[in-house]
């Protein structure tokens, strides 16, 4: 029966088949892939809903085309059940086959998606349930339409031209349901992220499409030219004449919101990746903040390619802090961050740099120059070594001149923490040197007996720095050593490098100078490198303890693998499926109207209207439908884009990440709407204007199709 039917009404059946296949594929695929990747499958819901409304239209048109066959059956004494099953059976078969094909395709599709997103996939109950649900919904739709036809009065069923009817209770209810769902969805979208809110674009599209249908139906016939008059008259007379725009509008609205979502999330990913990487290349340094600083200064003494950063990703916004070697920012990072909310941070960082910064000790021998030594003094230099471990170097001063001891673990760069003296005696220390670098300048009298037992190494009591907006007044901050110290805000900054939207930014060199010990274990130490850093510098950096670098591309890839990024891909899939559905539906809708139009053209030719004029009228009709759809789509896009996007969870951002920019982009909205609308209009115009050539008046006599 199926094949017979396919042979007899091949193209109509194929379109129904394609419709159900698309709906099932998307439904099963999205639910399956969503299950294994923990992404909301709410978008499948809209595709199924839209597919079912299209199916109802299409099945209705198809069955009405065969209503006289059914009427003949009834004349021969078939029962209503018999007529219903006779009408429904082929379509039931067809939808069954389509659902099976769609389910298989959907599973394949889901496994491909899952594979691409690195998740293992196997078919589970939800997919089967979705396929079954789609099939049952299709069957119910087919049965309902068939039952309606079988209850038609016999005379009407046999009539050549059908009488116009008001919409049935079920249809009215569905229309109202869609409108209410759209309204509630917009309300929910403003404050929630449930299913209804995620499905909001599709529902709003369907709802606005429905309103547009009602508007077009209520336009009174007008226009002095025949084409316009016929078009508007047709709109008013035939309840189904304008139904095609509903799906086009829905597809358009979803396409517009999806395009905005993709653009917004892409922009955000770009920003977030740039901020979180810090620069073109980002090397982790295991051994803490001082090591990163020392390694960068060792490999690149001139500050041309490498920038050390230490970040603390605490949960409290005012505890999040980043220390950057601000003097190198402009040269190393350059305009890499200029498109992000960091913007032109280089200018701001210029205010941060300046003396004093930490003095790096590099070498294997520590020497102390002292004059006027009398008695015996034990000098203790506490420092943090290459491995971020505090060490104590003890030097016994018992004569004037230079005293030296071996220094271990200061190949890359140590930093002194403290110099204290003890013992009965006094001395004047003029230098504490490693190689040519001296820790102290000038003369320092040491007289432990009289409380002169310390050489001061530390900087300012309050560190100057920048804060991101909204942190309030921050008075103190923990340094790299975890010890609190004063903070003095000198300006605002759009974001904190490596950390995101919230945090404080300070200078690394100064903070290291003030550290009382090595950096605490939670330190995220990095060295950021320019893209054009010479290989020799990078080799030196690696030898100094830098790990495998991450890059902007890696960060973008990581952000694209999140659940939210998958959600946006699902939305794109939904938009694509809806556009395909809308075009299929437009094609089927137009084809179902071809016999009527052919007859109409023939009648018009009898009264002397050229077939060209009739063709023009159909072209006008198509363009009016497409144009009104475009207007509706653009209106929704411009007015509701923000509201509809809000619940979509476009990005995986922790609250600390930069906020996603959801502002409406009119050009994007307009171009997407134009593409969808024009495509729909072209399909309609192509089918409707073609048959005019074969519409001879003689065709009216045979009353054949």
């Amino acid at each position, binding site marked *: 029966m199926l094949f017979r039917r396919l042979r007899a009404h091949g193209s109509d059946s194929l379109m129904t088949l394609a419709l159900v296949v698309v709906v099932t594929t998307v439904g099963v695929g999205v639910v399956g892939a969503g299950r294994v990747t923990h992404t909301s499958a709410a978008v499948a819901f809209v595709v199924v809903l839209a597919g079912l409304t299209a199916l109802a239209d299409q099945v209705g048109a198809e069955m009405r085309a065969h209503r006289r066959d059914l009427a003949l059956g009834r004349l021969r004494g078939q029962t209503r059940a018999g007529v219903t099953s006779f009408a429904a059976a082929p379509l039931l078969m067809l939808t069954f086959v389509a659902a099976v094909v769609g389910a298989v395709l959907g599973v394949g599709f889901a496994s491909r998606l899952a594979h691409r997103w690195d998740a293992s996939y196997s078919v589970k109950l939800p997919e089967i349930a979705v396929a079954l649900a789609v099939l049952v919904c299709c069957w119910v739709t087919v049965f309902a339409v068939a039952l309606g036809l079988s209850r038609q009065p016999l005379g009407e069923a046999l009539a050549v031209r059908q009488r116009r009817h008001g919409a049935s209770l079920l249809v009215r209810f569905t229309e109202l*349901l869609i409108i209410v769902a759209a309204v*509630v969805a917009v309300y929910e979208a403003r404050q*929630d992220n449930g299913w*209804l809110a995620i499905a909001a674009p599709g529902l709003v599209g369907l709802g606005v499409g429905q309103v547009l249908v009602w508007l077009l139906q209520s336009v009174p016939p007008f226009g002095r030219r025949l084409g316009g008059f016929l078009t508007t008259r047709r709109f008013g007379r035939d309840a189904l004449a304008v139904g095609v725009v509903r799906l086009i509008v829905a597809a358009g609205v979803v396409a517009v919101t999806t395009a905005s979502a993709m653009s917004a999330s892409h922009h955000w990913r770009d920003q977030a990746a740039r901020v979180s990487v810090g620069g073109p290349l980002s090397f982790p340094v295991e051994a803490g903040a001082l090591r990163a600083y020392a390694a960068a200064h060792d490999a690149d003494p001139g500050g041309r390619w490498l920038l050390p950063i230490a970040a603390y990703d605490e949960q409290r916004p005012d505890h999040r802090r980043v220390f950057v070697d601000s003097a190198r920012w402009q040269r190393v990072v350059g305009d890499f961050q200029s498109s992000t909310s960091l913007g032109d941070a280089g200018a701001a960082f210029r205010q941060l740099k300046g003396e004093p910064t930490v003095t790096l000790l590099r070498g294997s021998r520590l020497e102390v120059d002292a004059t006027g030594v009398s008695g015996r003094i034990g000098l203790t230099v506490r420092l943090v070594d290459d491995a971020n471990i505090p060490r104590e170097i003890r030097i016994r001063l018992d004569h004037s001149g230079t005293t030296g001891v071996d220094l271990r673990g200061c190949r890359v760069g140590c930093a002194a923490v403290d110099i204290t003296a003890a013992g009965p005696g006094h001395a004047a220390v003029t230098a504490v040197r490693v190689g040519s670098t001296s820790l102290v300048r000038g003369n320092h009298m040491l007289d432990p007996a009289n409380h002169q037992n310390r050489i001061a190494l530390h900087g300012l009591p309050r560190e100057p720095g920048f804060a991101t907006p909204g942190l309030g007044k921050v008075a103190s901050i923990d340094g790299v050593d975890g010890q609190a110290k004063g903070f003095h805000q000198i300006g605002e900054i759009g974001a904190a490098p490596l950390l995101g939207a919230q945090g404080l930014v300070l200078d690394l060199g100064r903070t290291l100078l003030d550290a009382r010990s090595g950096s605490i*274990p939670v330190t995220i130490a990095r060295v950021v490198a320019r893209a054009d850093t010479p290989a020799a510098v990078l080799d030196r950096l690696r030898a100094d303890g830098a790990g495998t670098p991450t890059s902007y591309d890696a960060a973008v890839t990581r952000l694209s693998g999140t659940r939210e990024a998958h959600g946006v891909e699902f939305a794109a899939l939904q938009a694509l499926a809806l556009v395909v559905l809308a075009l299929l539906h437009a094609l089927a809708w137009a084809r179902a109207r071809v016999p009527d139009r052919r007859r109409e053209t023939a009648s018009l030719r009898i009264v002397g209207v050229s077939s060209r004029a009739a063709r023009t009228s159909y072209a006008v009709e198509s363009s009016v439908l497409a144009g009104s759809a475009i207007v509706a789509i653009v209106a929704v896009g411009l007015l509701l884009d923000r509201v509809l996007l809000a619940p979509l969870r476009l990005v995986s951002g922790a609250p600390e990440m930069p906020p996603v920019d959801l502002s409406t982009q009119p050009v994007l909205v307009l171009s997407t709407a134009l593409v969808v609308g024009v495509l729909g209009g072209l399909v309609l115009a192509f089918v409707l204007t073609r048959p005019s050539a074969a519409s001879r008046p003689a065709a009216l006599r045979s009353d054949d199709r």
Partner: protein
Amino acid sequence: MRGLLATALRGLRSRGLLTAGALVLTIIAVASAVLGPIYQTGATRSFLVEKLRSEPPILTALTFDYTPDASLSVDAAVVDADAQATEAAGTGFAAPHSFVFSQPGLAPNVGPNGGEPRLVSVPGACQHVQLTGRCPTNLNEIAILAADSQQLGVKIGGSFHPWADSRTVKVVATYRPRAADAGFWLLDTRLQSSPAVPATPINPGHPYRPGPWLTPQSTFEKTLVPWTVVADLTLETPPDLETTQLAAVARHTAALINDQAAALPLPDSALLEPGNALPRIAADVLARQNVARDTVTPAVVSLVLVALVLLSRLLAAAMELRRGELALASLRGWSRRRLWVLGLVEPLLIVGVSTPVGLVLGYLAARVLARSWLVPGLPVPLALGSLAGAALVVVATGVVAVLVVRDALSETLSAQIGGVRRPSKAGRLGLVLQLLMVAAAVVVTFAAATRGHTGAPDATDLLLPILLAVAAGIASGAAALVVADLWVRFTRQRRGLASYVGARTVRRRREGTLVIFPLTAAMAIAVFAAGVSGAAAAWRGSTAATEVGAAASYSTTLSMGQAVRLTHDLDPQGRWLMAIAEDSLPQVDQARLIADTPRLARVADWPTSWTPGLGPGALAQRLELTGPSIELRGSRLGMTVDNRVRGDFAQLGVEVDYLDDQGNTTSAPVGPFRPGRSTQVNRLPHCRQGCTLLRLVFGGPDALVESMNGSAAISSLTLDGHRVADALDRGWRAIDSPIGTPSAVRGAPTVAGGTLSLDFRADTSNSYGAVTTDDAPARVPVLWGRGARQTPRLANG
């Protein structure tokens, strides 16, 4: 006109039952429209006041510490402090209640190791404690906390020198705090005694702090004790407290706390004590108040709606009976206007009579309800919303009357005279409205069912019960019609006449089924209300359990270890007492609760709604640590170690960390052990009753961390010569360094044949080598609260 009125009254009397019904329903509708807003306002206000009164006063009160000029007398200082505190606190707080406290200072002769006593003088102190002895009224007489008398070593009548000099105090009484006097002392810890806490690297600790010594004011004036005035200002919660007032007070308090506003008259000599949480409490209460109000709305609206729908039914029924009357009048040639007046007089009379009655009844009911259910003394003003509601009901009734009369008048004369109404199709608008209601119910239900999270109720949540009720009403009406239709067909030829006629009547008189609508709606709303009430009761239980935790809860200044020790001493079986501690973790900015979980199921009050599907027993099992810990009871700890470790030091030191008899964390060194096999015995202090072993730390001579390589084996562990049970035949594991440095213990420690073997590898001195028993797993089980931000690592200690 008079004739018309007489006709109307006669008509009303002749259909007495219908009239009475309509009257009652109108009165109910008006009264509930009046009652609803009044009660709602009252209830939310009462909620505000009750909530604030139920908070511990310390959280809502302001406490100022006032340090006077040295020249001021005590009386003058108190007056000055009161004036300054009143000025700083602004409005909304009661008059200050001031105490004179001595400033804390170390007194060597208080308790065995010295302590920090505080003297307090406040009028009425003796009346607000349970006093044994006489009230101290003379210079240098004091009353001490009964619990301190042993620790201080004095009895009533005794005297001693607390300070290093010769100043003497005489104990004339002991006191115990009473729960009823919590308001007087404001802070229940003010009358508490706190044992000494030894200093640790993290915690500076403090000496023994006995409960305050009550003394007359003259002690401060004559004895040279430095003193300060502490002024408490409790929040005033009059029944007519407005939300705006509360918000203003909270704002002012927040400014005081943050010390932001330089304009505030907070003088340098007065210092605000921390502890006031009014801004947070106010924000919380105000938010909950809004939720409470929103949740009451459906109930208020539905009662009015149901009454209105029933009323319209009754009016329509009355009108049906009056159609003959109208037909007669129109036969007599009455103009259309007069016919309208005739039709409308009766319903308007009903409205006119019942509106004032409803207004009065509604207001009285509101007063009665407010008096019996809400905070005493709550003002019950006639809210504007009530009048608007009543007006709305009157207008709605009028509209219904007009519609009913219009229906009756639009019938043809023959139909009016005929007396039998022909079945009519439902109107298009009505149909669309019904469909709209059903569609809305479907969508809103779907939205509520698929919502991602449960937050504050929004408009859809509030609409849901009403919509569902209406949809259920419509659906059951439609179902009744369908059933009647089927029944008519079924009984057409078969059954008796009665059921056929009955079913046919139902089918033909569609509006008759409308009666089902309000009934279903009323039932649905009643079910909803019962559900809400049940959920609210469960919530109250759960909240009470959150605040108290069990039947009773006692606060203590003991450390967690000490508290556990105390509860285990008092109740060894774990049947009545459980220690819990709460702290907050600054890194994650959230609170944490630590409980003695094996006792959770038996002692604590744990509603199953907190952990659905996981009862307290099962939960305790999951949170419980895996095995019993090692108990050390004795005074001399012996250890045999085979030391094969090479490092910076030849000897290997071991440190035993344990919880001592008092529940304090203590450590004792064992060793050092020379290379090869040797046994060392060292003193183990404070372990007469039984200590809990926490960990063994390895290192140089003093267990200080240094570089070491090799292995060590502990082959015996004895206490006073007896083997420690269950110590060297159980699992051990290495502990991560508390400061994140590498672990010196390589691999897992092995236990074989009563010997614990360890491999060490540490190249630098920043390693940490320690092992613990497997009763405390490396990953301690944690139960996260629903809103908690989960982190993989939490600080211990």
